[in-house]
C-alpha cells in the first residue's frame, strides 16, 4: 500500500510539474510556433503564409509578455512581406509593410533600447525606402546611419549585422561604396560568425544563415573571378544541405547561378 502511495505521489508530482511547466510555457510555445511559421513562410517566400505568421505574433501580444520581442517579430514579418512586394516590383506593398515595420519596431526599441537585433532590422527596413521614396535620400541615409551606429555600438560582430552590411554592399553600386568586392568578405565573415553563435535565449531571432550562403553564392557569381563559380556552387550545395526547404537558395539563387552559367 505504502509503495502504491509513493507511486501515486510520483505520478501526481509529475502531473503537477508538467502542468506548472505548461502554464509557464504558453508564451514561449506560442512564440516558438509562430517563429517556426514565419521561418517556413519566409523560406517559401509565400505572402499568404507570411501574413498568417504575422497574425500569430499579433495575437501573442495579447499575453502581454515581452511585447518588445513580439513586436520585433511582427516587424520582421513586415520586412519579409515587404520583400515579397520587392520581388514583384509592387512598390505599394513594399511601402505598406516597410512603414508598418518601422513603426512597430520603434515600439520595440522604445521598450528595449539595447536589443541589437532591432537596430539591424531597422537598418534593413529603412534601406527598403529607397524603393519608393528615393527623393527623401537624406532622411533615409540619416535613419539607416543612426540604426547602423547603434547596432555597431551594441554588437559589431553580430552575424546578422555583418550579413546586412554584405547584402547592402551587394545591392549598392561600387560608386556608392558597395560592390561585390566589399560584399563577399562580409558575407563570408557572417557565415563564420553564424557557425560560432549561440543565442542567449531560444526565443531570440535566428534568421539569416541561409541568406548568408545564398548572397555569398550570388556575389561570387556576379564577380565571376577565377574560381568564383566553383565556390558559388559549393555555397549553394552547402546552403541546400543545411536548409533543404529554403526556396531562396534552391530556386532563386540556383536560377541566378544557372543563368550565369548559360551566358
Amino acid at each position, binding site marked *: 500500500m505504502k509503495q502504491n502511495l509513493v507511486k501515486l505521489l510520483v505520478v501526481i508530482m509529475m502531473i503537477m510539474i508538467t502542468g506548472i511547466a505548461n502554464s509557464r510555457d504558453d508564451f514561449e510555445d506560442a512564440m516558438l510556433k509562430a517563429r517556426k511559421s514565419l521561418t517556413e513562410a519566409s523560406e517559401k517566400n509565400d505572402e499568404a503564409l507570411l*501574413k498568417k505568421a504575422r497574425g500569430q505574433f*499579433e*495575437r501573442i501580444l495579447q499575453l502581454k509578455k515581452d511585447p518588445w520581442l513580439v513586436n520585433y517579430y511582427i516587424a520582421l514579418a513586415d520586412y519579409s512581406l515587404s520583400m515579397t512586394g520587392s520581388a514583384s516590383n509592387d512598390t505599394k506593398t513594399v511601402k505598406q509593410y516597410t512603414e508598418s515595420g518601422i513603426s512597430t519596431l520603434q515600439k520595440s526599441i522604445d521598450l528595449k533600447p539595447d536589443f541589437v537585433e532591432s537596430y539591424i532590422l531597422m537598418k534593413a527596413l529603412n534601406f527598403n525606402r*529607397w524603393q*519608393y521614396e528615393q527623393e*527623401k535620400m537624406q532622411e533615409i541615409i540619416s535613419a539607416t546611419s543612426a540604426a547602423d551606429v547603434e547596432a555597431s555600438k551594441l554588437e559589431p560582430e553580430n552575424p546578422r549585422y555583418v550579413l546586412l552590411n554584405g547584402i547592402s554592399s551587394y545591392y549598392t553600386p561600387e*560608386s556608392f*561604396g558597395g560592390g561585390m568586392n566589399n560584399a563577399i568578405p562580409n558575407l563570408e565573415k557572417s557565415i563564420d560568425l553564424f557557425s560560432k553563435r549561440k543565442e542567449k535565449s531560444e526565443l531570440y531571432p535566428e534568421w539569416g544563415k541561409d541568406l548568408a550562403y545564398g548572397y555569398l553564392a550570388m556575389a561570387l557569381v556576379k564577380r565571376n573571378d577565377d574560381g568564383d563559380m566553383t565556390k558559388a556552387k559549393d555555397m549553394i550545395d552547402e546552403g541546400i544541405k543545411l536548409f533543404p526547404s529554403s526556396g531562396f537558395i534552391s530556386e532563386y539563387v540556383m536560377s541566378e547561378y544557372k543563368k550565369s552559367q548559360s551566358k
Partner: protein
Amino acid sequence: MKLLLICLLVITGTLSAQTGDSGNTKSPTKIFGTVKGEKDSLIEGANIVIEGTIDGATTDEKGNYEFETEQAGSKNIIITAIGYAENIMMIEIESGKEMNVNIKLTKDEVKTEEILVTASSYTSGTNAAVTLTPLEIVRIPGADADLYRAITTFPGSNQVNEGSRITVRGGDPDEVLTVLDLASLYNPFIFDETFNVSSYSTINPWGLKGINFTSGGFSAKYGNVLSAVLDLKSYDMPQGSGMFAWVGLANASLSGVYLSRDGKFGGSFSAGKLFLQPYLAINGEYSEYSPIPESNQIGGTLSYKLGTSSNLKAYANYSDDKVGIRNQSPSFDGFYESSSNSYFGNVKLITGLDNSTVLNAGISISKYDRDYSYGLIKSDQKDIYAKGRVDITKQINNKIELNTGLEYEYDGYDLTGIFPQYQYNIRPGAQSFGIDTAQNSGRAGIYAETQIKPSDDFFVIPGIRTDYHTLSGKFSFDPRLSFGYRLSEHNIVRGALGYYHQYPGIENYLRAEENDLDAQNAIHYILGYEFNSGGDILFRVEGYYKDYSNLVLTNPVNFLYTSEGEGNVKGVDMFFKVKIKNKFTGWISYAYTDSKRKQYEATKLVPANYDITNNLSVVGSYNATEQLVLGAAFRVSTGKPYTPVIASEFVKLQEAYKPIYAEINSGRFPTYTTLDMNAQYIFSLFGKFAVGVIAVNNVFNKKNLYNYTYNVDYSQRIETYSNNRRSFYAGLGLQL
C-alpha cells in the same frame, strides 16, 4: 488515505489552475466570418483575436477567417489590419455553438500632416503632401541646382530676367521674403540686379531639411511681406561626415560636413568659385565682358547639441561678385561695371521648455555692399540688416496648438554716388548731382495664432499680428485666417484670407514728406481644391484675388512719394504632379495672372511690371537606369510688360534726345520659351562615388528678349537679347 485525499485535492487544484478562467471555459466554439473594408472590399491579412488570449485567426485572400475557442461568455474581439483603424467588438460566445461574426473596418489614413498644409503652399518634408524635394531641385533642367529657379517651375512664380529673383502672382520681386532659420535673407544672390547677367542663389538645397514656399495666404508669423514667403529650415546637425568636390565648365567648389561620434557636435563648410572663361569659350560670348563674370563664396555652420531637446547653431556666409558687360544705350555705349559683396551670420537656439512647449530664438546680421558704374553714374550702396526673433509653440492638446512670437528688425541704408540730372542723358560730362545719404529704420512685430483641428478632416488657423515702423511711426494690423477641409479620402479644399502689410523700402522714404508713407497693404482671398492620391498623383487648382492699397505713388505736383497707390490681381494656378514608381517624376504647372497697379509713376491702373498673363512649365525626370537620370523642362510664358518710347525731342541744353513714352507698361515683350535638358550619371572614380552632369539649356537656341534699347534719337528700336542662349555645361562631382 488521508494523504491520497490531499493528493487528489492538489491534482484538482492544479488542473483548475491550468485552465485559468474555468468558469467561462466550455466545449469549443467555432467562430468564423469575413472582414471587409470600405465599399465591401475584402481584407486579406486582418488579424482577429479574443482579448487577453491568443485565440484567433488571420483572414485569407477572400477576407475569411475561422478559429475555435474554449472561451465563453461576453468577450471582446480585437480586429487589426495594416492601413485600417483597430476595431474592438463585444460578442457573446455560446459554448459549443458556431458563430458567424462579420466585421467591417475603416481606413486609418495619416491625415493630420496632409490636411495641415495651408493654401498656396509648396513644401518639402516628410508628409504625403510634399511637392518639392532637394533631389528634384538639383535635377530640374534649367534650374542649375538653384532653389529659386526650381520654384519658378511651380505655378504663380516667375523668374526675373532669367535669374534667381522671383516674382509671385504679379507682384514685385521685393515682395517675396526669404526666411532661413528665423533670419530674413535679403540678398542671397550673386549678380543681383546686374544688367543682362543672370543672378544665382547662394543657398545650398542639400543643407535644407524643410522648404516651404507659400505664394499667398501665409501665416501671421511672417510680417512685413506682401506677396510670398520662402521659409527654409536647415538641418540642426549634419547628417554624417564627408567631403565633396565639384569641378564644372564654369565653377568649382569644395564642401564638407562633420558629425562627432556622439552626435553632439557638428560642422560644415563650403567654398566655391565661379569662372566663366571655359564656358564662354565653348558656348560663345553674346556680350562683350570686361571683366568676365566672376564670383567667390565661402560659408559654414557649427552646431552643438545642448541637451535632448536643445540645439545651438551658428551659420555664416560670405559671397562676392564682379562683372563688366558692354551695353548700348541712346546716350552712352560702354561697359556696365558692377561688384558686390555680401556677409550673413545667424545664431539660432531651439529648446524644449517642457513636454509641450518649444522655444526658437535667433539673432542675425547681414551686410550687402554694391557698387556699379555706367556712363556718368557711379553708385555705392550699403545695406545692413539685423534681426532678433523669438517664437514659442505650445501644444495645448491634440487639437489645439498655439504659436506666438516677436521680432525686431533693423534696416540701415547708405547711398553715395553721382547720378544724372536727366535720366535720358548719362553721357560722361553731362549734368549730374551727387548723393551722400544715410537712413535707418526699425520694425517691431508681434503675432499670435492658433492652429485648431477639431477633427482629422478639418483645420482652421486664425492669427493676428501687428507691426510698428520706427521711421514712419506707423502701425499695421493684420488679422488672418486659413482653413482646410477634407471632402473625402483624397479630396481637400483649402482657403485663406487676411491682411498683409509691407513697409516700403527704406530708400522710398527719402522721397516722402516727413517719412509719411503707410505700410503697403494687400488683402488676400484664396480658395483651392486638391486631389492627392497619397503621393503618386497630386492635382491642385487655386483661384485668388488680391486687393492692394497704400502702394507707393508719385505726387504729380511735387514728385514726392505718397501712399495713394492701389491695385488688384486675380488669377488661377494649376498644378499636376505624377510619380511613377521610382522611374519617373514630372509635373505640369500653369498660372493665369491679371495684375494691375497704380504705382510709382502710373496715373491710372496699368499692368503691373511682372504681369505675366500665362505661364506654363512642363518638367520631367526619368531614371533610365539606376545610374542614369535624364530630365527635360519646357517653359512658355507671356512676355512681360514694358513702356514703349513713341517719340523723342532734342534738348539742346543737354545735347541729347529726350524720349517720350507711351502709357506705362502698355507694351509687351514677345512670348518667352525655353527647353532645357540634362543628364546625370553616377559612377565610380578611384573607388569613390562620382557624379557627372551634362546639361543643355535653351536647346532650340531661342533668342528671348531681355530689353529694348534705342539709337541716339530713339527713331530705331534695338532688341537686346538674353545671354542665356543655347549653352552646354558639364561638371563632375567626386566624394573625397
